[in-house]
């Protein structure tokens, strides 16, 4: 019997029992819509999924040797990286892949935002994606503590401390998160359970839902077309391209793991084991969280201890919650996109969000502040930091704006201009971060008000926009 006939009969056997033919038919007919924009954005979800798969595989391998416990966590990680064959590769790949996963997830989310792929009927795909993003941050936060080293210990102490600011439930939440009033080995136990059990179950479940949504509805076609004018065969063209990207990713991951085994050495993107955590040792200065939390860390620093009768951190958390909620509800807030009309305001909102996050992250790195030695003897100068970061953001923003005007024909810049004005007022005019933000917000509000009035008076056409 030839191998072709054997495969055929095996397929028939399975098909008779599990009705595989419709599935095969679905895959054969499935197409990826092609529009004016680059189709590169369609691969980011796949890349994120690939890195997540690497996380699962490398995580399971680490789990074979990792032993949570006061006397074993640090030691077992050290054992993995020094004694276990290829343990160094597994740990380094796990860490690199974690950061790359979040990076590709962020780009995927912003590309979805800019391409308005959240338009009906894909609102819930956006929401599930947003929840997956939150889960990924949870993975990062819980995994950070597991090596039980000095940096992780103090960063977790600082990170969990911010929950205290949640109104009414703050102290209770802190106790739940830490398993007591302080960060102890009990905190590690619950972070371990969260990292290797609870979060993976939730994430795998939600990824399945996210993928089912995408398969049921197909990938979002370009705006203005309910069905794309042309498409690419999902199988084999798109799948093979996906596989090609994954090959590149795995090679890059291997190279990074070997050449930069402890990360690129930037605060928030490093995982050198260093010294074992000592709860009795004094916290050393300059502790910073992972890069994707830096903006919240910096925003907390910008708030004074008390403002409007509330505690500064409380107000900051309220602001962050409001921004995150607005982000999650974008499919419903963007009413024009719901009508399949251009919604340049939301494109600009996405760009403004990028400016806002980049500026805060740069500030969190104390770029241009001088001083800030390892012992924290000399603190960076906050005015100089703000000045330098504004100077970095300015050309970046100019390039993005030029690109938007020239290539994408964008004509709506209120939010991005406000974000830029915020940075300029704070960095160059020396206003406080919140003061500058308030002025920029008021001006943006006025500009939007004027725009809405004009729009109501004139014909309801608004120039350009994706």
């Amino acid at each position, binding site marked *: 019997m030839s191998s072709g006939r054997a495969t055929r009969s095996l397929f028939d056997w399975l098909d008779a029992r599990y009705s595989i033919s419709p599935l095969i038919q679905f895959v054969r007919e499935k197409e990826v819509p092609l529009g004016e924009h680059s189709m590169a954005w369609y691969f980011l979800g796949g890349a994120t999924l690939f890195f997540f798969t690497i996380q699962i595989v490398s995580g399971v391998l680490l789990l074979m040797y990792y032993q949570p416990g006061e006397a074993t966590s640090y030691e077992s990680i*050290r054992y993995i*990286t*020094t*004694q276990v064959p290829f343990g*160094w*590769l597994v740990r*380094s790949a796990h860490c690199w892949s974690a950061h790359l996963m979040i990076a590709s997830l962020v780009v995927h989310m912003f590309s979805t935002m800019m391409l308005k792929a959240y338009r009906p009927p894909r609102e819930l795909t956006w929401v599930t994606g947003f929840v997956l993003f939150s889960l990924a941050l949870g993975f990062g936060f819980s995994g950070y503590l597991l090596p039980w080293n000095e940096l992780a210990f103090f960063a977790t102490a600082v990170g969990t401390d911010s929950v205290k600011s949640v109104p009414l439930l703050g102290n209770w939440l802190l106790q739940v998160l830490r398993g007591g009033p302080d960060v102890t080995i009990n905190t590690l136990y619950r972070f371990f359970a969260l990292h290797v059990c609870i979060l993976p179950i939730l994430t795998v479940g939600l990824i399945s839902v996210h993928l089912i949504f995408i398969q049921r509805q197909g990938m979002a076609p370009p705006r203005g077309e309910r069905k794309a004018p*042309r*498409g690419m*065969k999902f199988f*084999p*063209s798109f799948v*093979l*391209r996906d*596989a*090609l990207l994954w*090959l*590149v990713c*795995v*090679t890059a991951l*291997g*190279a990074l793991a*070997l050449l930069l*085994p*402890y990360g690129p050495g930037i605060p928030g993107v490093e995982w*050198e084991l260093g010294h074992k955590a000592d709860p009795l040792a004094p916290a050393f200065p300059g502790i910073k969280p992972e890069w994707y939390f830096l903006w919240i860390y910096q925003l907390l620093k910008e708030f004074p201890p008390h403002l409007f009768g509330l505690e500064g951190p409380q107000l900051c958390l309220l602001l962050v919650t409001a921004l995150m909620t607005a982000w999650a509800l974008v499919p419903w807030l963007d009413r024009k996109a719901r009508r399949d009309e251009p919604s340049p305001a939301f494109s600009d909102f996405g760009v403004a969000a990028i400016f806002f996050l980049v500026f805060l992250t740069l500030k969190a790195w104390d770029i241009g502040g001088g001083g800030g030695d390892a012992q924290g003897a000399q603190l960076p100068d906050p005015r100089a930091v703000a000045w330098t970061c504004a100077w970095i953001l300015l050309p970046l923003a100019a390039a993005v704006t030029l690109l938007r005007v020239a290539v994408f024909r964008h004509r709506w810049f209120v939010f991005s201009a406000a974000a830029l004005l915020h940075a300029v007022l704070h960095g160059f005019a020396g206003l406080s971060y919140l003061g500058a933000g308030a002025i920029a917000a008021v001006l943006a509000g006025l500009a939007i008000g004027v725009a809405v009035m004009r729009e109501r008076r004139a014909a309801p056409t608004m120039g350009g926009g994706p």
Partner: protein
Amino acid sequence: MRRRTLLRTLLAALAGIGAAAPPEPAPQPFVPSAALREFLEARAPSGEPIIAADQLAYFEGLPAREKQRFDAAVGLELIGAPTQLQEILSLGLRAGPLDLLLHDNCLLCHTNPEEQDAETLFSIDPEARGSPSHLQLGEFVSDVHFRKGLSCAGCHGGSPDVEGMVDEIYERWPESPARHTDRTWIPAFCARCHANPLVMRRFNPGLPTDQYAKYRESRHGQRLLDHGDSKAAQCVSCHGVHGIRDAKSPRSKVHPRQVPGTCGACHADAAHMAGYRTRDGKPLPTNQLADYEQSVHGRALLERGDLGAPACNDCHGNHAALPPEIASIAEVCRTCHAANGELFDGSEHKRAFERNGWPECAQCHGNHAIAKTADSMLNEAENSLCYACHRQHAADNPRCIETARYFYDSITTLATETASFESEVHALAERGLDDEPLSIAVEELHETLQQSRSRIHAFNRSEFDAVADRGRAVVEKSRTLIANSDAEYRFRRNGLLIAIALTGLLALLLYAKIRQIESNEPPRS
């Protein structure tokens, strides 16, 4: 009202506190007398309030009992001026010492500018009031005797409860100016308590009571008591007066970090030391403090704050201070550098030094200006320690220079290797390789290096090699560790290159497959 009480009880019960606590009696509100209020609100001729806002806040925060004491002192005119009240409040004393101060009529009266002249007025700023510097009020209320309740009357006689001066004070205290020119009475005066175990037991049972006996045997004591030389140091010269702090206090004049300055106040003062001579008749030098400050001991103590480093008294003694004789210098050094001393005792140098009457350690390392030792002391430079001495005293013995050269070569090789391995540890860590074994080896090398340098004091190759050989073995082990790590890194790098080649090939095949599929597809509308 009842509802509010009920609510309060309920809240306390919910909080889990206070329910069982007995109700505290409500404190009686303090109402200042008109005289005290007048002082508190008094203004200077410029219109500025005399009692500053922070001092008023301090007064308000005091317990009612202390406020009442202030009121009583103002009523008795012991506090006779707003400026006096201001000075007392500006001390910011806690309730305990403030209570002692307000109980002490001597002090209250002697801080009253209305009652005292500049010669007897205690003040926060004696310079401004023209008082002598020992009438510093801030220092006095920090005095260890004052804090233990032994105030003015403890030394001067009289009673702090009595409002006026009594004859006992004049009887006990020598007449001025005799007491300023003749200081011979001071040691015995302090010894009345400090040499009496029964008295000291009441205040500080742990404090020895043999200081006076030791002092009498010291060079200072001999000069003062036997020769009537009032320039010689006595208790007050070193411990101060009216501001004596516990010796453990960093501000005490006899705290280890203050001792060089305290001794130097006399011994570095050429005018004060003029006329004093050494045993061999030379003028007593006054450069000890300057030398000590530059020495390895001085830098450790004064710059790094290392209290393990010796101050003057650790070598010379304190109450029994005497210059160490040649025979005892080595013993003084051995109290800390015992191992080097033992090695030296078994060496050929011991006999040679004895023959020449040289003071063992000090002969090579000096005394007050002991410099940090360096390997270059062993090399063959013209002015190096070993070479210069041997050229002069043992020119006929070439073995000595050979041994010094051997020590020097061995130690510098070990030191160079250690430094290179240290940088290799960082290189391994950066490449993600296991740096712990090499790091341990480097620590071992540091230890061996230190021990080798110490073993030189035996001036014997076999003694030296017993340690140096261990170091040489660690160097070999470290080289093997580095070679193994390099091999491991090469393996990883080659593995990566092979992986990249394979994945690259696979990627090329995939790309070709995609092109092939798409070129075969019919054109789509």
